[in-house]
């Protein structure tokens, strides 16, 4: 692959803090139009790896090359202080200047257009996630880092949002680093999977990973089977893409 297509590359990246490795020896590469998913149990270093990629740590071991500055981030947890009155419309332009049309269409895509003038603190968990996602895609980033972007979203919405994420990566030709617990759904939308457990324990296409032994040890035979079931469903979800988005509207 051409190097200019690579948006970000981690080489041997890791972080050593309070006398232990939070995560170590991570090799990871995201190209344009590619969705890379990080999976792994709690505390395996998924969020830490994403933050290393984003440059949020001052001292890391290894190397991170970033070839883009148009980065959008959906953090795992965002809490809005009650001292700060903030509407969805204000939040959309937090780090960027946007045209009204761009704001509206992004909110539309994630199905929360009607909440534009609501206060962020009045939103439900699922609505808030949709707003976070809308804000991240509104500026048409080249690299999108999503840390559990659909937590708290109901199941139908979850499937729709994952297929939206897939559409975004195709339409904007941007790279996406995705962290998720929803193995069964997320695999269908992923090009490359990195399975973390303090280090990269296996990686490859969803099918490769699902069939690999380390993965089965980490998540059990059951989820490996689950995964292949959803692999099978892949075409179906993918082809009904547009319909699902319409439903959300």
């Amino acid at each position: 692959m051409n190097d200019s297509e690579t948006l970000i590359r981690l080489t041997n990246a890791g972080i050593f803090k309070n006398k232990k490795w939070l995560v170590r020896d991570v090799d990871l590469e995201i190209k344009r139009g590619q969705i890379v998913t990080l999976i792994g149990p709690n505390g395996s270093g998924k969020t830490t790896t994403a933050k290393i990629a984003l440059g949020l740590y001052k001292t890391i071991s290894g190397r991170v090359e970033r070839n883009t500055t148009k980065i959008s981030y959906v953090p795992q947890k965002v809490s809005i202080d009650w001292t700060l009155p903030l509407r969805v419309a204000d939040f959309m332009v937090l780090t960027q200047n946007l045209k009204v049309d761009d704001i509206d269409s992004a909110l539309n895509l994630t199905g929360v257009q009607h909440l534009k003038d609501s206060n962020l603190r009045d939103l439900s968990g699922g609505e808030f996630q949709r707003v976070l996602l809308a804000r991240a895609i509104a500026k048409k980033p080249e690299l999108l880092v999503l840390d559990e972007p659909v937590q708290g979203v109901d199941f139908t919405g979850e499937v729709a949002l994952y297929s939206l994420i897939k559409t975004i990566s195709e339409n904007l030709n941007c790279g996406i680093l995705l962290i998720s617990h929803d193995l069964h759904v997320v695999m269908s939308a992923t090009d490359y999977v990195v399975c973390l457990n303090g280090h990269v324990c296996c990686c490859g296409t969803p099918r490769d990973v699902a069939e690999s032994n380390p993965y089965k040890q980490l998540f059990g035979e059951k989820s490996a089977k689950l995964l292949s079931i959803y692999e099978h469903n892949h075409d179906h979800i993918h082809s009904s893409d547009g319909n699902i988005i319409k439903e959300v509207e």
Partner: protein
Amino acid sequence: MLDDFIVRAIIAGIGIALVTGPLGCFVVWRRLSFFGDTLAHSALLGVLISITLDINVSLTIFVVASLVAILLLRLERTTNLAGDSLLGLISHSSLAIGLVILGFLSFIRFDVMGVLFGDILSVNSNDLLVIWIGGALILVVLSYIWKPLFASTVNYELAEAEGMKPERVNAIFTILLAALIAISIKMIGVLLITGLLIIPTAMARNLSDNPRQMVILSIIGGLLSVLIGLYASFEINTSSGPSIVVVALILFILSLMRIRKKNYE
């Protein structure tokens, strides 16, 4: 006209209220009121150093307050004490050191009450210049860093990930706070400046549902507090600082009614 101390006081007050409004919002949003208080307390030390060494008061206060801010950030990183304990430590130590130095300076006639609570009679046309030029500079810099500062107030990591350099704008904001204290001590005093920062902003929070509105209302609240407070101060001969803060408090109490109404709706 500028010879009239009432006119000078009003012009000075308006200048300060225009700056405390927006800065106060960030102080409230970022929960920095005790931090602001600590910087303000160091101003007494600044005043005394400036008298002892015969250098410009505002400049000395600015330098001392900035040093205190740097010291705080250092200590926060190197000690195991919580932020509020450190603030208490620095805040009261600097106030105490100031007062001890004052004991040594018994040969100088020095109005402690004036520094603690503000002395509007002492505002001369030179001070007006400092307030308005300093205030304008603060506002220009603030508007320049507004977006990244606001973004990092909402979510630090998100701002940093998207290239807003929060560490730098936070440092600049601290310097602006020190500068505000430097230009406003004479008017409102060491012990009460945080009151003018916080109370009109708290009132604005009760009445607003978006950040822009809150900033505007906070400025209006500050202006009203200063104007009514000064008027009362001249009429019934009270200290200017406390009068201003009391008016701000009354405005805040009035704003609570709106909140009660909102909750019933």
